[in-house]
């Protein structure tokens, strides 16, 4: 047994780092939108980094644990309580059979994550635990979590080990506004006029409510192209900033289609993807261009920061 869901929230799915090796066949990459929070949740309970976790959107789940376990909550501040007492995020929590976990609308951030020590007892599909709703594969029966579902645990560990620690620095996603998002220009920046690129880099864009796991859709000034934005369809990288004929950017995220026919003015660097994943509707964004060399430096710094978490939890 595991966690019996009494309230499933808006969109709750099991996700991991993504499904690799099938994009050539047209399968979306899937995976956690905020991979950092997913990774940290797993690290907090000493799971394998590739374990599946619950991803919850704007609203968390509520439910009853049907066995003892250890969990960790990361990402958005979903006002978590256990047996009506507030609990901390970014810390391993010891849970007893019968404990009631509750959450509510997010106070900060768009997506919350719940990891259980030992992981959920589900089978990987095509090498991944991630749910792909379009194909109905992966995760919990290929579907989003519903009221009444019982999410089974592998329950290899149900006691708080003495080494379990929490992290002190809990991220505040809406701290900086507007949020600065760094991009490398290209692959098709030559489809846009100088004025178009200036607009892109110097105006404030707003995250709209029709953003989802496929793409973050932005409202703001139209980006001028030289001669239209239609290209011969090509592959779409994570974080591609696609400019459709409306001139309003769409940033391609975890559930993006693998190929598409709109020009992409820039690509968000990998370290800043989690910031976008946590941007609630109406969040303001400004884009900042960096060179590929700088993007690489930022990547290394970011990766080192994540690697250090293992040590910080142990010592």
């Amino acid at each position: 047994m595991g966690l019996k869901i009494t309230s499933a929230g808006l969109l709750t799915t099991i996700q991991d780092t993504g499904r690799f090796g099938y994009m050539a066949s047209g399968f979306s990459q899937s995976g956690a939108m905020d991979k950092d929070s997913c990774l940290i949740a797993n690290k907090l309970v000493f799971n394998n980094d590739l374990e599946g976790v619950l991803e919850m959107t704007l609203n968390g789940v509520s439910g009853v644990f049907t066995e003892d376990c250890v969990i960790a909550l990361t990402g958005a501040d979903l006002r978590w309580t256990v047996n009506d007492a507030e609990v901390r995020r970014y810390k391993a929590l010891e849970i007893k059979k019968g404990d009631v976990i509750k959450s509510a609308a997010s106070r900060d951030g768009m997506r919350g994550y719940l990891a259980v020590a030992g992981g959920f007892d589900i089978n990987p599909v095509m090498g991944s635990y991630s749910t792909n709703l379009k194909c109905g594969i992966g995760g919990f029966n290929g579907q989003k979590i519903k009221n009444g579902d019982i999410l089974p645990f592998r329950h290899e560990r149900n006691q708080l080990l003495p080494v379990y620690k929490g992290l002190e620095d809990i991220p505040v996603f809406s701290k900086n506004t507007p949020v600065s998002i760094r991009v490398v220009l290209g692959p098709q920046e030559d489809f846009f006029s100088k004025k178009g690129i200036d607009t892109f880099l110097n105006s404030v864009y707003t995250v709209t409510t029709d953003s989802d796991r496929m793409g973050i859709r932005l409202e703001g000034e139209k980006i001028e192209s030289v001669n239209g934005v239609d290209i011969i369809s090509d592959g779409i990288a994570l974080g591609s900033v696609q400019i459709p004929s409306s001139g309003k950017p769409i940033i391609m995220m975890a559930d993006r289609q693998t190929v598409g026919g709109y020009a992409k003015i820039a690509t968000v660097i990998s370290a800043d993807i989690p910031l976008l994943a946590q941007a609630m509707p109406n969040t303001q964004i400004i884009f900042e261009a960096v060179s590929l060399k700088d993007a690489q430096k930022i990547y290394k710094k970011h990766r080192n920061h994540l690697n250090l978490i293992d040590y910080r939890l142990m010592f």
Partner: protein
Amino acid sequence: MENKNGIRFLYCGDTAVSVEFGNEINAEINNKIKSLSMDLASSPIKGIIEYIPAYRSLLINYDPGLISGESLIKKLKKRTASLKSAARDKKTVFLIPVCYDDEFALDIGNVCSHSGLSKDEIIKIHSGTDYLIYMLGFLPGFPYLGGLDERIFTPRLETPRTIIPAGSVGIGGKQTGIYPLASPGGWQLIGKTPVKTYDPEREAPILFSAGDYIRFCPVSKTDFELIKKDADAGSYSCEIIKE
């Protein structure tokens, strides 16, 4: 960044590079993509995670912890400079059985009135060509096919259907294709295949790859049912010819 042989290497952030072989849709350019993918598969470059072949470009996803974008492009430049078109001498054709009976060919009437041809002529034309799979996308395993005879080009339905069953074969404008799984869509349906082109339980979930060819082979409703029985049980394998 352009090579002397006209190949462009485009940055896609810090995790991907696009290798662009040209700016049009034709089999020769597409063949180069197949050649590069085959080359990378047979002698991998450390750090490459996977790649997405498209009409005229290959998107290469890499791990920036293992290789930098610049050194990847350097290596790719070398590879593409000495690329042999190994793919061209082997043409892999998947023979896909299709039942064109009225039960499945819901819109063949539209194709008839648009083209001025009879049903039999349309079936003969549609099944008389080998179609190159330029790329897969839109849905898992949805083949973007080149080579549809212009006599049977037909505009999409004015009102798309909310659900098109898996296996449906249709025409949308200048293209033809197979729906690998049930999906909304606006294509004119002219038949259905009993073969599962997509099966998440199969070792290779998608039957074919970009660069392969598809030939549609007309079958009767009786044969359709027989093949479907085997296909559903997982015991049907599509005939494949290499030429």
